[in-house]
């Protein structure tokens, strides 16, 4: 198939299916996988054999690990040693043994069973990290635990390649060397000690090169100001490291990660990231498409039950082992479930290892084909499993309402003020009022914020302030004032509206997002509003004027002018707010008028004074004239 046509098919499939999947809430990974299935040889058959594309696409995983490495400082890595070696090691061993045991129950000889266990213990770095990223879980404890495991799996591949051939039960057909992963290794024929030495040497080259060679080279390139050469150099690093690693039989992804960590502290880190980022996205997308295309729908159709059994068995077994281990390592149930769900699929290493084991005569070709399909399907099901996990978690949240959020006893039954929302805005307002001796009851719906505030000894009640029953419990019937300082535009309007309807005499003050929001709030019954950024922006402007050489009082008065004009135009435009066209026209007019007025006002500023006041120029002139007149009169008198 011509290259352009092939590119057309891949790009077209991605561009069409990924946004649709995203819109349906399925996530981009599933979108790519579906696109792959559709264009694959077993559905529309728009693309043929995947092996070449697959190899190319796998490079996306290498780039991904390089980018992750860039984010990981060596010290962070050291802090993660327990997660990597403890939890990760336990996972690989535990899952391998569990799957092997289960396979033996199904009648496989122990050698084959163990090989299957090791192959299936691997998870998919690309799918896991991409999925966690999309769910916003990658930076948290879940992401760290998952990442530690994935990193150890990458490491574990090395001994596995050594171990697997010894489990051969079938006469090897082709020599293992031909298989994908170890394919490029130049040292396979060397004795073990020499291989070990070469591995150390390779790692040394990557670390030393990253430390001492890359920086001067990059500085030299950066000075040449050729952006594309910088990008090329960045790619060269990744490709170079991957090749070195492959030569000594290490995982290229692992090497790329190592290189990333070494460069994480260099000043070129951000630039490397932004240069390589697009390649990662595209190549990973391609990788997911090839995985999708590789799912043998024929096999699925012929042995649907076996395959379903395999996939379900694989994922539940991996989930259970991982969940149990995570709990053992002290993770909370929710987090353990998230990690276990995320890692429950087979990984891209399984494809490589399966090819390798078939070659080495460890696993039969039919079984390998079945396992390949099962792994691919399990990868495709991961985003679905994550969605399922989220649904169940949400349902569990709904089933145990108001247990986590503790509203707290409303002991002060007669507050003067109720403050809804106690974040960056409400806190300042609230503290001013409390310092002046007013009693306030504070409601906020952000649990973390409340925990923090409680640790500082402040009484904050948990609750959605838009609920009238909660406001009543907080004492709104006896309060003099409600201050709405929520961070949410719609909720602010909603609360102002309901509170005004229920309590016509209550004084309601509200934090407004911008002018339109302010008008909206006033129209819905707020007594007064304040645009949340207005005063602070003016204050910064005043400081700016001072730093530009204005004396403090002149800067202050200039800001006062501005404030007055702005508030005036706010009132003037209020009646036509809501009539979109008219409002835009009028506000443009008002802005121009204001600028003009402001300019007139400020034009009267002479150095050292402001706005016509203390402007003694006209007086000076009059006094001078008078003095001249007096002088000439004296002349005349003489």
């Amino acid at each position: 198939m011509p290259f352009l046509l092939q590119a057309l098919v891949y790009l077209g499939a991605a561009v069409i299916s990924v946004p649709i999947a995203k819109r349906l809430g399925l996530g981009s990974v599933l979108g790519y996988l579906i696109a792959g299935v559709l264009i694959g040889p077993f559905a529309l058959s728009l693309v043929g054999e995947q092996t070449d594309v697959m190899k190319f696409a796998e490079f996306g995983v290498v780039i991904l690990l390089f980018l992750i490495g860039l984010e990981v400082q060596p010290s962070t890595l050291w802090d993660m040693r327990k997660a990597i070696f403890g939890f990760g090691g336990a996972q690989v061993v535990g899952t391998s043994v569990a799957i092997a045991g289960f396979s033996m129950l199904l009648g496989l000889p122990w050698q084959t069973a163990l090989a299957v266990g090791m192959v299936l213990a691997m998870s998919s770095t690309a799918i896991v990290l991409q999925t966690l990223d999309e769910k916003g879980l990658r930076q948290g404890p879940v992401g760290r635990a998952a990442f530690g495991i994935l990193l150890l799996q990458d490491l574990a591949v090395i001994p596995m390649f050594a171990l697997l051939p010894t489990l051969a039960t079938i006469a090897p057909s082709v020599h293992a060397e031909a298989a994908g992963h170890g394919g490029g290794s130049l040292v396979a024929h060397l004795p073990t000690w020499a291989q070990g030495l070469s591995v150390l040497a390779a790692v040394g080259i990557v670390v030393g090169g990253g430390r001492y060679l890359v920086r001067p080279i990059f500085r030299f390139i950066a000075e040449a100001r050729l952006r594309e050469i910088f990008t090329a150099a960045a790619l060269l690093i990744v490709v170079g490291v991957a090749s070195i690693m492959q030569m000594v039989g290490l995982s290229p992804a692992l090497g790329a990660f190592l290189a990333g960590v070494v460069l994480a502290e260099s000043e070129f880190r951000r630039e490397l990231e932004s240069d390589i980022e697009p390649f990662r996205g595209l190549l990973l997308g391609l990788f997911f498409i090839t995985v999708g295309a590789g799912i043998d729908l024929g096999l699925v159709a012929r042995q649907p039950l076996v395959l379903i059994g395999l996939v379900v068995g694989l994922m539940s077994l991996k989930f259970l082992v991982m969940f149990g281990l995570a709990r053992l390592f002290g993770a909370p149930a929710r987090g353990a479930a998230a990690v276990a769900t995320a890692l429950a699929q087979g990984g891209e290493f399984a494809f490589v290892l399966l090819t390798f084991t078939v070659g080495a005569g460890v696993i039969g070709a039919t079984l390998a084909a079945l396992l390949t399909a099962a792994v691919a399907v399990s990868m495709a099901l991961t985003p679905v499993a994550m969605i399922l996990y989220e649904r169940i978690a949400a349902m569990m949240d709904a089933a145990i309402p108001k247990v986590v959020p503790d509203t707290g006893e409303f002991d002060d039954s007669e507050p003067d003020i109720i403050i809804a929302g106690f974040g960056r805005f409400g806190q300042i307002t609230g503290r001013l009022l409390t310092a002046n001796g007013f009693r306030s009851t504070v409601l906020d719906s952000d649990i973390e914020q409340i925990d923090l505030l409680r640790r500082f000894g402040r009484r904050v009640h948990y609750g959605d302030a838009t609920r009238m029953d909660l406001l009543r419990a907080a004492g709104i019937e006896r309060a003099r004032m409600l201050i709405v300082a929520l961070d949410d535009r719609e909720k602010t309007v909603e609360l102002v509206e309901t509170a005004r309807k229920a309590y016509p005499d209550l004084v309601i003050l509200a934090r407004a997002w911008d002018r339109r929001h302010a008008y909206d709030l006033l129209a819905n019954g707020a007594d007064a509003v304040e645009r949340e950024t207005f005063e602070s922006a003016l204050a910064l402007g005043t400081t700016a004027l001072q730093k530009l050489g204005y004396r403090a009082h002149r800067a202050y008065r200039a800001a006062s002018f501005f404030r007055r004009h702005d508030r005036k135009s706010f009132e003037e435009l209020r009646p036509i707010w809501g009539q979109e066209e008219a409002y835009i026209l009028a506000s443009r007019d008002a802005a121009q008028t204001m600028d003009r007025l402001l300019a007139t006002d400020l034009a009267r500023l002479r150095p050292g004074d402001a706005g016509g006041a203390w402007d003694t120029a006209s007086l000076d002139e009059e006094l001078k004239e008078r003095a001249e007149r007096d002088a000439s009169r004296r002349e005349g008198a003489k």
Partner: protein
Amino acid sequence: MTDQLEPGEVSTGTEAAATSGVLLTLAHPALERSRANRALAKAAKGLAGVTFHDLYETYPDFAIDIEAEQEKLLAHDVIALQFPLYWYSTPALLKEWFDLVWLHGFAYGIDGNALAGKRLFAACTTGGAAKAYHAHGYNRFSMDDFLRPLEQTAYLCGMVWETPFVVHGAALKNDEDLKAEAGRYKARIASLMTTPADAEMGA
């Protein structure tokens, strides 16, 4: 104000027809603590024809709107100032108000005739007793002496300086005394709108 007027030509000016009443300008930074000024203001506020103007409430940040203030001055015949005597003078914001609003070319100077013919009236509360404001008292000068700057301001602007209204020892007065003072004050303000100016009576 732009047209040049001969000094003799100015009396009440063209604004006379539109002007009326008293602009009662109150300057007290802590009115909530002042029994005397509250009582006085409350009594005068209710009078028809009095525009009550609380300076510290309007301009807590001293950012006085010059145009708006000049319009207010133009719209009234009597400019009344009510304030506590601080350091033998007006509170800071009232002084700022003069500095910013009573400008050359508006209130005084060859072109500054806007206030000519209007009456300027000061009502003042003091902490010390009446006998302290005397050549032999511990304040060594009379209230008339301390209010000279205002009197001269009126003169420079071509205004009529009305006899000031002073409440001495304001903090020591009991409620009944204050009530009596407030009654006197109210009558005085009312009289400013009905009787001819002091100057015209030949005071």
